């Protein structure tokens, strides 16, 4: 597409300019990565865009942003390129636009899934039973049998992971297209450390430019709430499966049960995190955001928020007659979330993690080269900054 070509070309122009300056090199991985390059191709641009954690520090440090004629704006450029990544590498490509771009994709999936669950209940039970109160062991499965739930969500889970893997494979092939060096286990360890600590969401300990140029760490810790919250709910679900199928103790579990504690901590964490992130998104300087990217980001956060809020409501009201309806709504939201996951901003962790692995690999090789006794013909030219 013409507009894509323009975007990539302008990106290359910007990176060449940045590479002639390099004042940002202390901020994050992106600015180290450009120093290992002399020219930039489309794959480099895709890699750099996904390596960027969108902290905004470079934008405020740059004397060449608009109104300067150079018009440099890496956060916006990378946000636009990431949108392209999410659409280009998913499968089927056409679904990416339909389901990932706007929140309406999730709402429609949510509505349909909820209706299907209700339909299933009405088809398999006496309609009046929906409004009955069920408590105690196995109450979650009173109207929807356990095997049905396991079947539906396993299929959706496999679908989500499957499409992620397809995207990951395509993306990895592209960003590694000019590389011969092997990725080693230690690169994966390094990348995992970077990812788990969100090292680059916050300018090397300085903090992000969350809402304006003032460095802050709010986005980092809010993201930790979401990320680790997600992992806690995942742990809760896995533990629940263990209790149900190995120990044969069916859900629901009491409030102080490890499954419920993990799930509650995770759910509350994600509600705090997503609410905070949405708030910061609203307050963010529009100069360095891309409207489309901002929208798709916000819709993913909204979807996650919805899943967690319905989950918490279910926990609170599970002893009442509303339980069945809430269960259906929550299941509908989870199903919609899984189904749209390969197309929403959720995929960012897949590509960003792979970009970090690629970066860790490049970083290790650069360090090895620096300390190597023989001088190789390396692409990195000697120091180029002006010292004023």
């Amino acid at each position, binding site marked *: 597409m013409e507009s894509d070509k323009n975007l990539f070309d302008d990106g290359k122009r910007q990176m060449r300019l940045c590479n002639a300056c390099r004042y940002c090199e202390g901020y994050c991985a992106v600015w180290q990565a450009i120093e290992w390059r002399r020219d930039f191709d489309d794959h480099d641009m895709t890699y750099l865009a996904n390596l960027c954690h969108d902290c905004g520090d470079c934008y405020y*440090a740059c004397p060449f942003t608009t109104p300067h004629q150079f018009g440099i704006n890496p956060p916006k450029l990378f946000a636009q390129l990431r949108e392209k990544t999410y659409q280009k590498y998913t499968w089927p490509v056409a679904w990416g636009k339909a389901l990932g771009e706007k929140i309406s994709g999730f709402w429609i999936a949510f509505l349909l899934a909820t209706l299907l669950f209700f339909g299933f209940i009405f088809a398999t039970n006496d309609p009046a039973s929906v409004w009955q109160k069920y408590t105690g062991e196995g109450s979650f499965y009173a109207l929807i049998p356990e095997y049905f739930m396991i079947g539906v969500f396993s299929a959706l889970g496999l679908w989500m992971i499957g499409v992620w893997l397809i995207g990951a494979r395509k993306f990895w092939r592209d960003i590694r297209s000019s590389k011969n060096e092997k990725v080693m286990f230690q690169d994966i360890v390094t990348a995992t450390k970077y990812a788990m600590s969100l090292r680059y969401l916050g300018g090397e300990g300085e903090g992000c430019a969350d809402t304006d140029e003032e460095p802050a760490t709010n986005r980092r810790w809010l993201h930790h709430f979401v990320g680790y919250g997600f992992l806690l709910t995942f742990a809760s679900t896995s533990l629940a499966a263990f209790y149900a199928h190995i120990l044969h103790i069916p859900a629901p579990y009491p409030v102080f049960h490890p499954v419920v504690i993990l799930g509650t901590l995770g759910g509350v964490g994600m509600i705090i995190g997503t609410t905070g992130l949405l708030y910061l998104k609203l307050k963010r300087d529009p100069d360095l955001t891309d409207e489309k990217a901002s929208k798709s980001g916000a819709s993913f956060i909204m979807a996650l928020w919805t899943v967690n809020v319905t989950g918490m409501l279910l926990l609170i009201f599970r002893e009442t007659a509303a339980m069945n309806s809430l269960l259906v709504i929550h299941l509908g939201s989870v199903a919609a979330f899984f189904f749209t996951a390969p197309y929403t901003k959720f995929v960012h962790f897949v590509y960003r993690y792979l970009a970090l692995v690629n970066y860790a690999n490049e970083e290790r090789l650069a360090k090895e080269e620096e300390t190597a006794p023989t001088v190789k013909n390396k692409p990195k030219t000697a120091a180029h900054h002006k010292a*004023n």
Partner: protein
Amino acid sequence: METDVLVVGGGNAALCAALSARDHGARVLVIERAPKFYRGGNSRHTRDFRVMNIKGNDFMIGRYTEDEFVDDLKRVAGGEINEDLARLIVRESETLPEWLGKQGVSWQPALSGTLHLARTNIFQLGGGKAMMNAYYRTAQKKGIEVWYESMLEDMEIEGNEFKAARVRKKDSVVTVKAKAIIVASGGFEANREWHRKYWGSAADNFIIRGTPYNQGNVLKLLLDYGVARVGEPDAFHAVAVDGRAPENDGGIVTRLDSVPFGIVVNKDGQRFYDEGEDFWPKRYAIWGGLIARQPDQIAFSIFDSKMIGKFMPSVWDPVSADTIKGLAEQLGLDSDAVEKTVKEFNEATRPGTFNPAELDDCRTEGLKPPKSHWAVKIDQPPYYAYPLKAGITFTYLGVKVNEHARMIMEDGSLAKNMFASGEITAGNVLKRGYLAGFGLTLGATLGRIAGREAANGIRQESVR
């Protein structure tokens, strides 16, 4: 409008002066000629401070002593420095990293790009604009008032005492009464009219590397009011930049590294200086002046495809052609002259081992001017060229100050409440040459002194 200390200018020196005066209890108003986006003058384009470093810190490697620092200054200035003032600045520089850190500036650990200066210089995290943002944030927190798009139009001076300033603030004119004034408004490097006085129409072909707002209007006012002058009026620091650089404010990215990898011809297709005299970082600063003295103030760096990839390319694509003739035509040069120059150069090259990492043995013989190193035949098409122009960094003309940053009048007397810092005072220490990172160091140290002296002077006055 009334304040204690009026700071004129909005860069590193001005903000250090303002913060220091505020820390010493004064009310402070900063007037910055530029709009908010362009605030900070040439400090926006800076990268590092040169500081004496004995105790060591987290951001530098090794030790840099007072004597070594002073010797470096003497070396670049050809021995002609004000040693007392230089020593004072060097000693004061030792505490700068910590003091500036307290004023909000963040530092960058020594990375590969900055390693070769990590012993002598400390680098701002994110560079000059990030530093300026930090200064202004701190200034706001400390209650310093800042007016943007505000310029000093005139001053009321009685004897050696500053009384009030006439400030054009956007569309209105405001009289600002202050108990002291600190001027840190830079030189006149962006004022073409002023350059024309010395350079004639050649001035129209200069590139201004930094802020377009350094017009020298305050410098002119001060000299007109009888403040003593330092520095040669027509002297400036200029480097070779890509000829396609914007007229103003292109900053660091307009730099060109190709010169040692080929030859440089002027508009007549003639070489005019040894392109391989020394490593480029040691020579780029003389090339600005060299080009400024060529016809139409333009030159062309020509190299062949063997050299592609050996240096960082310019931000702008090189002109290229399959023949030297074609290249010359594209550049608008006399192709016969360029062909002849290249031919003579090629014939004069002596065999050697090309190595950009050292002063290698590839040189010319019997050629005038010679190329002393990295002289390799230009014979592998396609051929490439970058246009070069003179990019002015700063001017040396300024006002005389003493070790308290207090201005000295033409009659030798001291100004009562007038101080200066930054580029406008640079000529007090260095009359020529430049030492990487010294500009910011001078601005910050003298600024800190000026702020303190101005504030303390006011306090003593009120006690009396």
